[in-house]
């Protein structure tokens, strides 16, 4: 199974966000909200770190 770097990041972020969201909250609405927020943060921070590393990769 071949996935691009972005696809792997999306897959990982989605699964982990779902797990943490449902583990840390009680009500379903709060769980989904927490999972979605966690997913967004994963992507934002991941892309931010990628850009920070970019100058050193060249």
């Amino acid at each position: 199974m071949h996935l691009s770097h972005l696809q792997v990041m999306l897959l990982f972020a989605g699964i982990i966000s779902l797990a943490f969201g449902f583990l840390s909250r009680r009500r379903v609405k709060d769980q989904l909200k927490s999972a979605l927020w966690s997913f967004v943060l994963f992507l934002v921070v991941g892309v931010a770190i990628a850009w920070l590393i970019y100058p050193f990769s060249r």
Partner: protein
Amino acid sequence: MSEQEKLQALEEPAEKAADVPQRTAALPETEANWPAPNTARAAAFAIAGWLVPGLGHAFLRMWGRAVICFMTVGLLCFAGAKMRGNIFASDSTDPFATLGFMADLGAGAFYPLSKIVETHGPDVSHADGDYGTRLLATAGVLNLLFALHAYEAARGRKA
């Protein structure tokens, strides 16, 4: 404060305590059905949750979490195996490989299943295999976290 006021202040906690059974009945079903804290029982739930991801939460009637646990750990293991990640074995002298084995073993029943899914063996010379190795380790560690949560929930410390 007069004697009557002092008596009233002493009686108030008793009146509030009378409301406790009604408050308990209003709580969600999972909390009302929690057994009394029992360390051995909690440990058994945790071990069951490690062996079969989500089983510990299923015993506690936390059905949503049980399903999520099973699906997330299973999906991570499946994706990691399909990407030909390295599934560490127990017979390794390298300390990092031993650590990797302990992480992979955390996935419980999905550990041998991952070996069955990975038909062509690991291939860490490509990025896919590297990612697969990480996904497999994450699945194991995540399952251990779920097992710990089941233990804490069985002891009444977590919701």
